[in-house]
């Protein structure tokens, strides 16, 4: 999923591009959420005693619970979410998808083995690996979002690419997903852990692409090539190149073509895949198939409380009191005026912290590998 080890590369070389924040600091922001990724998370995480929540017919309802409560949490914090669903997968992804199917099969057989032996922990582990988001799950979530008055978009292709398009056009502030390839698609701000449960108390990580590129000292094109070298969903990678080597190669040669030329002599060390489709993958990152942002109109509506209750309680067996209380919060958030943000009135001056940075930056570089999370306290 996403780009292999990219967050580590960023942590090592551009730690100032990552900020930890809380959801309440994002109020007033519109955020595009990678729906498929979130639904997958909900199916895995929202469980009681190891199995998914189900309604009277035994159909899974974990995803609905997730979408409902996590959306309310965002709305309560003044965030305006818009969900973006995956369209058809790009043809380049078929290799990756085949691998995933393979892994699922493997998990299936292991699960059977575990069930036979009655190892509870293993059974749970493999059941989780079997989780798959079906079109039916997506359809139900869309119906729920409609009732909640929350907008959603079905992307023509990859959801992360569509989110990036929305961010680039200024329609939303950020993309919320766990997949780091949102950055490769060019989203200016990436939020991680946005749809995690409140109980986990995970701070939200905010990545800024501009600072990432600054910190890595790469252009967006070089950055895309770096991501392909690290390993993406769309093509294989060169064997024998890890994250440190990938970064130093890009720094030295600036493009995959030049790198291939340079490593020709060291055939033994590196295995370049036959018929490597890196150029196609690069094209996909640069010009993904998306619906143009200008054609997209986002509207947050007042929730239809009665239909919402009917959908959640009568069809899917949620408790009416809790759903009504949730709906109330949605209505309330919709009717109160929102607090403006100062940074939408005044522009941030470039070169945030002047001077003084220099000396400390060298030090930060020296203790590589720490994956610096936030600014350290104390100067030494």
């Amino acid at each position, binding site marked *: 999923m996403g780009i292999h080890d990219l967050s580590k590369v960023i942590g090592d070389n551009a730690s*100032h591009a990552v*900020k930890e924040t809380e959801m*309440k*600091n994002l*109020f*007033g*922001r*519109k955020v595009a959420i990678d729906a498929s990724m979130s639904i997958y998370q909900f199916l895995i995480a929202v469980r009681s005693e190891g199995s998914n929540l189900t309604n009277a017919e035994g159909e899974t309802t974990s995803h609905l619970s997730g979408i409902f409560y996590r959306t309310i949490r965002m709305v309560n914090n003044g965030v*305006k979410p818009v969900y973006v669903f995956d369209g058809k997968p790009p043809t380049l992804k078929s290799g990756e998808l085949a691998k995933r199917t393979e892994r699922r099969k493997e998990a299936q057989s292991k699960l059977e083995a575990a069930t036979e032996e009655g190892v509870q922990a293993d059974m749970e582990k493999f059941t989780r690996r079997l989780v798959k988001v079906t079109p039916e799950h997506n359809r139900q979530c869309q119906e729920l979002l409609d009732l909640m008055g929350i907008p959603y978009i079905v992307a023509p292709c990859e959801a992360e690419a569509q989110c990036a398009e929305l961010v680039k056009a*200024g*329609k*939303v*502030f950020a993309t919320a997903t766990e997949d780091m390839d949102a950055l490769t698609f060019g989203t200016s701000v990436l939020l991680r852990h946005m749809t995690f449960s409140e109980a986990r108390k995970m701070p939200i990580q905010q990545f800024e692409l501009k600072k990432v590129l600054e910190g890595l000292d790469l252009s967006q094109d070089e950055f895309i090539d770096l991501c392909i070298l690290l390993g993406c969903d769309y093509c294989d990678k060169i064997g024998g190149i890890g994250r440190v080597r990938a970064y130093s190669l890009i720094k030295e040669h600036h493009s995959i073509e030049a790198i291939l030329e340079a490593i020709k002599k060291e055939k033994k060390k590196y295995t370049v895949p036959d018929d490597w489709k890196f150029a196609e993958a690069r094209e996909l990152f640069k010009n993904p198939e998306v619906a143009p942002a200008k054609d997209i109109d986002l*509207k*947050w509506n007042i929730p239809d409380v009665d239909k919402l209750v009917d959908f959640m309680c009568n069809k899917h067996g949620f408790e009416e009191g809790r759903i009504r209380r949730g709906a109330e919060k949605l209505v309330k958030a*919709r009717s*109160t*005026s*929102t*607090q*403006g*943000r*100062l*940074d*939408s*009135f*005044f*522009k*941030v*001056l470039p070169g*945030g*912290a*002047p*001077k*003084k*940075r220099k*000396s*400390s930056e060298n030090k930060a570089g020296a203790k590589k590998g720490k994956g610096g999370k936030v*600014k*350290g*306290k*104390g*100067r*030494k």
Partner: protein
Amino acid sequence: MFEARMAQAALLKKVLEAVKDLVTDANWDCTSAGISLQAMDSSHVSLVSLLMRKDGFDMYRCDRPISLGINIASMTKIMKCANNNDAVTLRAEDEGDTVVFTFESADQEKVSEFEMKLMDIDSEHLGIPEREHTATVKMPASEFHGICRDLSTIGETVQVSVTKEGVQFTASGDTGKGTITLRNNSSVDEESQQVVITMQEELSLSFALRYLNFFTKATALADSVTLSMTADLPLVVEYRIEDTGYIRYFLAPKIDDDDDEDNN
């Protein structure tokens, strides 16, 4: 080398009091002209901007611009160790990573020295254009303090309306509604007690009282306060620090959410 001395610790204590609820860490930017500080609260709704010109100090020296990253709570703790009448000297080396506070008692019999570690603070500096505002209201600082305090017992939001008649502060909540109206009284003899309203057009804006209550922590710094407003723009609350400079607060207005052609 940076060195600045002021006769009364009380002033610096009051400045910290006025800043500490809003920001936890801030860069004190020292130049040959004086000390300035700009910081936003963590949710980016409000901003405090402090200026202390060098004339306000007994002695002031700053060879090279330097910014001192300071944890406000730690500095407050250190300043608590000074008596109001003590003279305070701040000192920092150009490449150092500490700032030294020296307190000297008025009778010169006691000298205390505190050294504090500095921090690297990643702060975003906002460019704030100087502008003419459509309406300004000058009033006694204590009056404004009282209004904010009283109205926060009623609701979370205050609506400030400036009309020809005067300025009206309204808050409403679950329990009811409160309105306080002030009229122009520029004829009052004592300047600090005057309420002076100037306006080009009538306007009405809504603000979160929570933040205004942080701002009024600066009441001790000045006799009067000036509110400057323009429709759909942040409110500016300014306290002039006599002979020294000012502390200004900016607060983004609350926006009615009909449909959002707006600010991401």
